[in-house]
Each structure stands twice: as C-alpha cells, then as structure tokens.
C-alpha cells in the first residue's frame, strides 16, 4: 500500500499523471509477464496492473476475454500468478504491482491465504471487479492485515452517495471506470468524463486513476489532464498480440503513452 501511495505522491510532485499499463498474466505465453513487466518499467510505467485470468470475465470486452482464455489454455492459475509476482520482485522490479482478478479464484484459494501469499510475493494492491464494497468486508480485512490495498471502482452511474461510500472505504487509489461498458479500446473518450472525475475529486483526496477505453497516446494525454493515473489495458494487449516481438512492442507502446502523459522515461 505504501509503495502505491509513495508512487502517486512522487508523480504528483513531478506535476504529471501516473501511467498504469495492464497485462494479462500468462499471455501470450505462460511466462511472458516475467519479461513484459520489466519492459513496461523500461518504457516508463509507474505502476503495473497484472490481470489474473478467469473463465468468465463479465466486465471485460473481447480483447481481455481472448487473452484470458489464452492464458488459461497456457495453464495459468492464481497460484502461478503469485509465483511470478515473487519472481519479478526477485528480478528487481520495484514499481507497485496491482493484481486484478475476479472473485471466484480468490475465494477458492481463501481470502486470508490469498492475502498472505500476495503480500509475501510482493504485490501492493488488489482490484476485484465483481466485488463491490458491500461484499468486500472479509477480503478487505485480510488484505489490510497484510498491508495490501483493496482498490474499489467507481463508474459514471455511481451516485454521490456511492462515491462517498467508496471514498470512505478505499485505500491506495480509486479506479474510475471511464464509461458505462466493458473494457476495450474505444475511438473516443466519453464526453462526460471530466465531470465524472471532478465529481469524485470533490469527495476524496485519494489518487484517481481512469481506465476502460483508453487506447491512444492522445487519449492518454487528455485523461492525464484530469486524473492522477491513466490505465491502458486492451490496446496494450492488442499491440502485444499483433507483434512479432511482443516485448519490444510493449516497451515501445508504453514509451509512447508515457511521453503523451508527460512521463520521463526511466531507461
């Protein structure tokens, strides 16, 4: 949790927004994350979201559905995701690593065991898209006991009462879903995005990161003007999937995004 807060503080002091790319662990190959994550850091990523694949990702669009299925076909499991997080830390990756996965695999491992092992592996936070605050008491308690953040989402449909509820319970940062819909690259940002971000901003000092639908550097640049963090997933995965050299392609795409959000490259 401290690593997340420290990163957003530093980025804020530098007068820019944080870039948070998302990849599906186990895609395109079972161990791809071990090389992709360092490449994303070289490209300038400030935090990285690591998707735990699930067979029925109902909040995801076609791209992440396909990468998740591929990852499962490759043999990816939650336990293996945690092993790879530990391996990444052993290889010197220092950026905050945030696990994103649906609730059932976590429930089957057991919330307490998951929290313990995620902390031991070196993860900093967890996002569970099908676990709203009302259902999250048990997992939140377990994660907080191990110093991990449980990051909640807010959507354009969230009214002011829910914004207040999530603001009270959130740790780390708040994930703002830019649009009413599923993940996936879109041609245009929703017109009411700035109003939505401003509405949440009134309720909390926590960092606000915006995701869903952001696919191009110029869109990332626009979001960077209004929020503390910019999340790009499907567009990055498509770049990875289309490339002959996925590692180089991922690094180059993230570097482009970083330049757009005003991030100096770390390499």
């Amino acid at each position, binding site marked *: 949790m401290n690593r997340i807060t420290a990163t957003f503080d530093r980025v804020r002091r530098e007068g820019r927004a944080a870039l948070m790319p998302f990849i599906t662990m186990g895609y395109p190959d079972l161990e791809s994350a071990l090389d992709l994550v360092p490449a994303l850091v070289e490209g300038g990523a400030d935090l990285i979201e690591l998707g735990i694949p699930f067979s029925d990702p109902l*909040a995801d669009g076609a791209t992440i559905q396909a990468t998740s299925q591929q990852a499962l076909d490759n043999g990816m499991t939650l336990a293996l995701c945690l092993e790879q997080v530990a391996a990444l830390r052993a290889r010197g990756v220092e950026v905050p690593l945030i696990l994103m996965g649906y609730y059932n695999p976590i429930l*089957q491992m057991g919330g307490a065991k998951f929290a313990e092992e995620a902390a031991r592996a070196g993860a900093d936070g967890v996002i569970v898209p099908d676990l*709203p605050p009302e259902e999250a008491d048990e997992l939140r308690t377990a994660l907080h006991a191990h110093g991990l953040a449980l990051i909640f989402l807010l*959507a354009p449909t969230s009214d002011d009462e829910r914004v207040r509820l999530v603001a009270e319970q959130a740790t780390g940062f708040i994930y703002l879903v830019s649009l009413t819909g599923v993940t996936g690259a879109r041609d245009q940002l929703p017109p009411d995005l700035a109003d939505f971000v401003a509405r949440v901003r009134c309720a909390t000092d926590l960092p606000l990161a915006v995701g869903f639908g952001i696919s191009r550097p110029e869109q990332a640049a626009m979001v960077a003007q209004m929020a503390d963090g910019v999340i790009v997933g499907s567009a990055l995965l498509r770049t990875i999937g289309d490339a002959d050299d996925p590692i180089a392609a991922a690094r180059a795409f993230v570097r482009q995004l970083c330049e757009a959000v005003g991030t100096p490259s770390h390499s």
Partner: protein
Amino acid sequence: MSSLPQGPRFGPYGGAYIPETLVPAVRELEAAYNDAQADPTFQEEFHTLLRTYAGRPTPLTPARRLSEALGGAKIYLKREDLAHTGAHKINNALGQALLAKRMGKTRIVAETGAGQHGVATATVCALLGLECVVYMGAVDIERQKLNVFRMKLLGAEVRSVDAGSRTLKDAINEAIRDWVTNVRTTHYLLGSALGPHPYPRIVRDFQRVIGDEAREQILAAEGRLPDMLIACVGGGSNAIGLFYPFIEEESVRMVGVEAGGEGIESGKHAARFADPKMGRVGVLHGTQTYVLQDPNGQIALTHSISAGLDYAAVGPEHAWLRETGRAEYTYATDDEALDALQRLSALEGIIPALESAHAVAEAIKRAPTMRPDQIMIVNVSGRGDKDMHTVAAALGVDV
C-alpha cells in the same frame, strides 16, 4: 411467510457480486420491485395478464396410467407445458417486463439456454412494445433452431455467443456485458432464480404462482396437501416456484432434480450438488452458491441433453433449502430423462420438455416406493416440441 428470507441472502448464499456500474441498476430494480409488490394496481395487472394472456391457471392433471404402471404414489402433473409459449418461463417474463416498463426502460436483454426463456421474453416484449435482444450460445442455437426462429418471428434480435462453452453460461456473460453498456435504457430480464440480489427473489415471487395454484388445486381434488413435490433444477426457477408456497408445510417433501448428463463419474453433467469434487461454493454471475468449477476456481464446462439445465451454478435459495434439509436434491442422467420422456408421452399423451423429463424420471424412481394413498406433484415445466430433433437424434431416428 414473514419468517422466510427476504434480504440479499439465503443463509450464506446469494448476495450481489457485480461490477460497480451495475450496483445502481440493481438498487433501482430492488426499489421498483418493492414498490410494485406493494402496489395493488401492479399486482392486478400482472395477474390479469397471467389469466388473459398466459392462460393461467394451468391444470393439475392426474397421471392415472403412469401412476398405475408404477404401482405406488398417486401422481399429479402441474401443467406448465400448457402455459402460453409452452413453459413456466412466461410467468417471470411477464412480471419483469411490467417492472421494466414501470422503471421507464425501453429495451430488454435476456439470455436463453433451451430458448424457452428467450421465447417468453420475446413474446412479452412484443405484447408490451419493448425492444428485445436475446443472447444465446452458438451450441444452443444449433440444438434449438425452432426456438430461434420463433424469437425472430416475435420481433426479437437473437445474438449468437461464440465465447467459452457457447452455452447458457456464456450467453449470461454476454447479456451482462450488454446490460453494463446500456444500463440506463435497458433492463436485464434474467430468466432463472439466479444472479445478483434482488433477482433470485424477484424470479421466485413471479414463479410462485405455480405453487400457489398447485396448492389450491390439490386441496380441491384431494382435500389435503401432497406428500411430495418433484421439479427439475437448472437455475431452479420452476422448482422454487412450485416449492415456495409449501416451504412451511413440513409434511410436504420437496425434491429437486439436477442434470446428471452422462453420469457423475464422467464429469459431463450439470449436477452441482451431486459432485463433491467439482461442485463447491463459489461466485458466478453475481451470486454465491454451489458452482461446478476446477480446483483453481475456473468455471467448469457442463453437459446435459437438455439445454435448459446445462449451467454451472444453481439458484442460491436452493443451496439454502438443501443446507437446511428442507429440500433434497438428486439427479437424472440423459438416458433416464430420455426414457422418462418416452414413458410420459406413451402413457399420458403428454410430451414433456427434456428439462421436465428429469423430474419425471425421478417420479418414476420414487413412486413405486410410496403407498397408493400418498400424493406426488411433478412439475411439467415445459412441453417437449422444441426437443424433438434432439430426442430423435438420441434415439437414432432421422426426422
């Protein structure tokens, strides 16, 4: 009935495990539903349509020749196959579509497995002038071609789902994705007693008309309550509809029948309660219940000869009824269902849906162990016309 669960959970089961985008929508639905339940005008409109449009009450038919052939309990059949569109699904579809109109929604999305819920939804949308999109797995589209054609005639758009196992589970994923995207104008007309709160409660309440009628009818015919109720359980809406009005009558045994597919050992089935290895408490499609899954929590692929029972999770209230011992659950295999379908057809002149044939199969097993003065009600949740191609193929007949 005030002691029965009314909140988001049935014991530890149920809840609302949904993306934040949908939380306001299910809240709105819950408020609208509570309001409608308390509004005599809404209730009057619903029950009038059940009577004048859906053809209710459906009969309770004594199965004289089947009872005689089995030589045990006196069997009655609750004839949901005679409801408009050929299954109990119309009850819930009418109720929810009225609710959608009340909420000002102009567009309906639904999932369908066997196609019965899709047809019922397309039907009520035609009746009430609502736009209708039905998601259906590509495998199910193939095995239920007739229902696809019916839905199109009724003005619905049928969207084929090619993801995952290309059956009901994947159709629900896609319907939820559509709902997330169009939530401001769209109501998700969920077809079984599943999904996030308040759906399991809403669907149960709209289906309880089955049990309310059966209770009245058996009292009129026999002057007493039945000894046993039997219904098939996919998500479990026809079963909960029959069971619910009898829950507090402890003398009435309630038996739910899951799809045993090719047998539990084969792994090719949809029997969530019968397989302790794959059937464990988990979360799927917004609800916590028994779910067929692998050791890592990935949802298992299911199999049943009946598309309507071919689903990895069971309604949360059934999980609770089982845990409390109030209802018992068993399964029938594909072969047993096929056999039951043929016997009911030949002995009573009633061709049940393959789903309902699972309940008939259990009646065939149980009735001979009971006394002739004992009464059993079997829910014939739908009619079998839609299954004729599947049945013919399974019997090796070219039609």
